[in-house]
C-alpha cells in the first residue's frame, strides 16, 4: 500500500553536463546534486533559500543578466554556466563587499595555508582578527569561499567592530564581530525549529543576528544548537571544545537519551569528546538534535565522578576492589541464588546485545525468568 510517487524530471545542462533534476529543484540544488560547486554563504541544504549573500550567481544562456541560482528553478532545456571569468569577477566583487565587514587580512594573505597560531604575522594583523586564532579556522565556509574565489590581494579596508561577544547562555557563544548576516541561524531557528529566538538586529550600526529579547533564555531559546550548526563562520560556536581546534577522529553513533535515536557525530581529540553535532544525511534526525544530545554528552562521559573501579561493601562501606576480587565474589554468591530467588533488572539505557545477554544469563545460568527493565516508566 506504500505509495511510490513518480517524480517528474527536468533536463538541463550545467557546465556541459546533462542533468536530470527532480522537478521543482533550483539550479543550485541541481548543480550540488552532481557535485558542481557554486560558491554561496547563505544557502544550506536544511534551510529555505533567502538570496541574502548574493554569491551564487550563474549565467543562463539567453538571459541578459546573471541570476541567483539558489532561488531560480531549473527549467527544461536550460543551459547554465557556473564558471565563466565574468561570473568569477562578479562573485569576487560580492565577496569583497562581505569581507569589508569581516576580518579579512588572513583570508587575502598568500601565506594563509602555512600560518601557525604562534607565527609572527607578516601583515601585523591583530590577534582578534586572525583566522589562525579563530576557533572556526579550518572548517570555516567563509575561508572556503575566499579560497575558491582565490582572493589574494591587499587587505580589504575593514575596521574591527569591537562588539562584545554574547556569552549569555552556557552552551554557545555569539561573536558579533564575525557575523556576516547570512541569516542561516535566523532561518534555522524559525523555519526548522519553529522558534523565533533570533533575528537580524543592529548593534552599533552593524547588521548582525542576535536574540530578540535581552538574552537567549528570555527569547525562548531551547538551546538545540541548530543555529550553531548552520553558521558558516566563527560567529556562532559551541563553547565546549571551542578552543580545541580540529578533531583527530570522529565517529557516528546514536544519542543515548530519548527514543528518537538521533544520529550524532562525536568528534574526539586525545581520547576526549570535544564536539557533538547531528548527522545531516541518512539519518532520522536530518541534521537536527536537541540540547541533550547536542550539548549534554561530553561532560557526563568525562565526568570526574565516573566509576572506574569495582566496589565491594566491606564493614558497611563500599570499598574499591579489583575485578578479580569482585568477579570471584559474584560467582561465589550467585551460585547460591539460582532459581526464583534471583532477579535481573536490565536497562533501556543498555544496548540490544547487553539486554540479550542479560536475559540469556538470567534464564540459562540463573534458571530464572525474573527479568525486566524500566520500560513501563
Amino acid at each position, binding site marked *: 500500500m506504500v505509495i511510490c510517487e513518480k517524480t517528474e524530471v527536468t533536463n538541463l545542462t550545467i557546465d556541459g553536463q546533462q542533468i536530470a533534476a527532480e522537478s521543482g529543484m533550483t539550479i543550485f540544488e541541481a548543480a550540488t546534486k552532481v557535485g558542481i560547486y557554486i560558491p554561496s554563504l547563505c544557502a544550506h541544504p536544511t534551510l529555505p533559500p533567502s538570496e541574502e549573500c548574493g554569491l551564487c550567481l550563474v549565467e543562463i544562456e539567453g538571459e541578459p543578466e546573471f541570476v541567483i541560482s539558489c532561488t531560480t528553478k531549473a527549467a527544461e532545456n536550460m543551459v547554465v554556466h557556473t564558471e565563466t571569468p565574468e561570473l568569477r569577477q562578479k562573485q569576487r566583487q560580492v565577496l569583497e563587499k562581505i569581507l569589508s565587514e569581516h576580518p579579512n587580512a588572513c583570508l587575502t594573505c598568500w601565506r594563509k595555508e602555512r600560518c601557525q597560531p604562534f607565527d609572527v604575522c607578516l601583515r601585523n594583523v591583530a590577534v582578534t582578527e586572525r583566522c589562525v586564532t579563530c576557533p572556526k579556522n579550518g572548517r570555516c565556509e567563509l575561508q572556503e569561499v575566499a579560497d575558491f574565489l582565490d582572493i589574494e590581494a591587499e587587505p580589504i579596508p575593514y575596521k574591527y567592530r569591537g562588539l562584545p561577544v554574547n556569552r549569555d547562555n552556557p552552551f554557545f557563544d555569539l561573536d558579533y564581530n564575525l557575523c556576516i548576516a547570512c541569516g542561516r541561524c535566523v532561518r534555522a531557528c524559525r523555519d526548522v525549529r519553529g522558534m523565533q529566538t533570533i533575528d537580524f538586529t543592529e548593534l552599533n550600526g552593524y547588521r548582525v543576528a542576535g536574540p530578540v529579547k535581552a538574552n537567549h533564555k528570555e527569547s525562548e531559546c531551547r538551546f538545540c544548537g541548530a543555529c550553531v550548526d548552520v553558521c558558516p563562520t566563527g560567529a556562532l560556536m559551541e563553547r565546549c571544545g571551542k578552543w580545541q581546534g580540529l578533531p583527530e577522529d570522529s565517529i557516528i553513533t546514536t544519542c543515548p537519551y530519548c527514543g528518537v535515536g538521533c544520529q550524532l557525530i562525536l568528534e574526539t581529540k586525545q581520547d576526549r569528546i570535544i564536539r557533538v553535532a547531528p548527522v545531516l544525511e541518512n539519518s532520522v534526525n536530518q541534521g537536527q538534535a536537541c540540547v541533550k544530545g547536542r550539548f549534554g554528552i561530553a561532560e557526563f562521559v568525562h565526568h570526574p565522578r*565516573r566509576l572506574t573501579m569495582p566496589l565491594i561493601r566491606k564493614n558497611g562501606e563500599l570499598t574499591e576492589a579489583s575485578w578479580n576480587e569482585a568477579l570471584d565474589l559474584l560467582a561465589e554468591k550467585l551460585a547460591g541464588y539460582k532459581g526464583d530467588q534471583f532477579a535481573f533488572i536490565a536497562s533501556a539505557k543498555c544496548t540490544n546485545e547487553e539486554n540479550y545477554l542479560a536475559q540469556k544469563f538470567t534464564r540459562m545460568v540463573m534458571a530464572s525468568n525474573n527479568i525486566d527493565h524500566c520500560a513501563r516508566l
Partner: protein
Amino acid sequence: MAGLAASFGSGAMTNSINEIAQAACILVTGSDTTSGHPVIALEVKKAVRNGGKLIVANPREIELCRYAGIWLRHAPGSDVALLMGMMRVIVDEKLADVAFIGEHCENFDAFRESLRNFGLDFVEKVTDVPSAKIAEAARIYATNKPATILYAMGITQHTHGTDNVLATANLAMLTGNIGKPSTGVNPLRGQNNVQGACDLGALPNVYTGYQRVDNPDVQNKFEIAWGCSLGSSPGLTLTEMLDAAHSGQIKAIYLMGENPVLSDPDAKHVQEALSKLEFFIVQDIFLTETAELADVVLPATSFAERDGTFTNTERRIQRVRKAVEPVGNAKPDWQIICQVAGRLGANGFDFEHPSQIMDEIASLTPSYGGVSYQRLEECGLQWPCPSKDHPGTPILHVDRFVRGLGRFTPLEYKPPAELPDEEYPLILTTGRSLYHFHTGTMTRKVSGLNAIEPHGVVEINPVDASSLKIADGHKVKVVSRRGEVICKAKVTKESPPKVVFMTFHFAESAANILTNPALDPVSKIPELKVCAVRIEEVQET
C-alpha cells in the same frame, strides 16, 4: 504496550518518524513532544507548515498547543472518555470507514455497543471539555486523511493505561488510518532503548522478538540453542520483583544501568525492598542513589565507550560506536555479563565483539533475522527484517494486521485510582523536561543543563496559587498519602486549575516519593500521571 499488541498484533510504533510531516491530521495525546521527543516535534511542526491539522489533547498548555488548530484540555485521567466521545461522534455522523472495518477488523459491533455509554453530555462532564469541541476534533480527525496518532507516557502511565491505548487503536481502525503512509498509532518511547530492551527479551514473559516463554516450541528452540533446560512459566515484573524482595522471596538482584530509587513510584518502598536483599549487584557508570544500596558495584562504560546497537522508537536498529577508551577500569556491560557467566562455569558467553552477539540474536529472532552489523552501516534497519535480503519495514499492518484482523475493544470509563478529596485537593501529574533526562544520572552531571534548569519545581496555576497565598519562587511542601517533598513553586497558566505538575529528574525533590504505585492490571505500568496531593507553604528560615 499490551494494548496495541491486543488490537493489532504488535505493540510498536506502526509508522515512521519521517512520515509525520506528510500527515493531513495529527492527534498528539499524552505527549509533551517538544520536551520528551524534541526532534519528532519538529516533524509535527513541519506537518502544520505543510497545512496539516494538529489536535493536541493535554491537560497542560504544552508548547505544541501554539501550533494546534484545536486543543482539548481534558481532565487528567479522562482520556478514555475523551477518545470514546470522539468515536461516538464519528460513528453517529457516519464518518467511519465502513469498508475498511468490514474488510480488516473484528468485534466492531461489541465496540459500537460500548459507545452507547459515551453520550457527549457525560463525556463533557468527565473530561471538562465542551462537547462542541470534542465533536469538532472528531470531525477533523475523521475527515483529514492520512491522520496519525502520537502518544507517550501521558497515555500509558495510568491504572487504566491499557484502556487508553486500546482507545487510540480503536480510533485509528474506525477511520481506516492504519497500514498506510503517515497514519497509524505511534507510541513514542521514552528512553533511548526501551524498544530494544523489549525486543531483546528483557521481559519476564518473552524471549527475543516477543517469543513467549510458555510456548513449548519456543522453549525447545532456545533449549537447543543454549544447550540447557529452561523454565516455562513467566517470571516477575519489575514491580512484582520489588514486592517479592520486600517480602523476602527474592534474595538476590543484579541490576544493570537503572536507578529505580528515583524512577519508580513510591520511592520509600523501593528503598526498603532493595535494602532487604541478601545480595544486590549494581552495574552503572555513576554511583547512583540505587547503587549506594548495593553490596557490589561494577563500573560500566558509557555509550561512547562501547560498540552495540539501540533500537529507536520507530523500530530502527542503529549502531552505537565506540568513540573513546573506557575510563579507568570500567568495562562494557556485555563484557561484564560474559565474565560473570564464565566464572559461573557457563558456556555460550565467549563473545569478542557485540557483532557476534547480534549474529546469535538474528539466528534466534525472526523479526531480527536479517540483521547484521554490516547491514546496519548505512542508516540502520527497521524490524521486522526477517531475512538477509529483506529491506526492513517502515510501516506495519500494510494490507493486513500482524494479528490477522484488527480487533476493536469495547471500553468503559474508569476514574483514576486516586482522586482529589478534602485532605488532598489537587491532582499531581508528572512529566519530562527538555533539559533533563529520566533520573538525571547523566544530565545532572552537565553544568550547562543544570544552569538552565537547576532544580525541580512544582508548577501551579495562578488561581490555586493565589488561594493558597503562594507566590512564584516560594518554597512549598507537596504532600501525598505516601510522602512529602519540598521544592519551589512556579506559578504558570500552563497547569490548569486544580492540577499541579512536577518532573521526576531531581533526587532532592523526587516526584516519585509522592506518586501512586497502583498498577494497570494488564501492562503493570504504575499510575504516575495522576495522584492526589496538597500544597503547603514553607516558611523560609
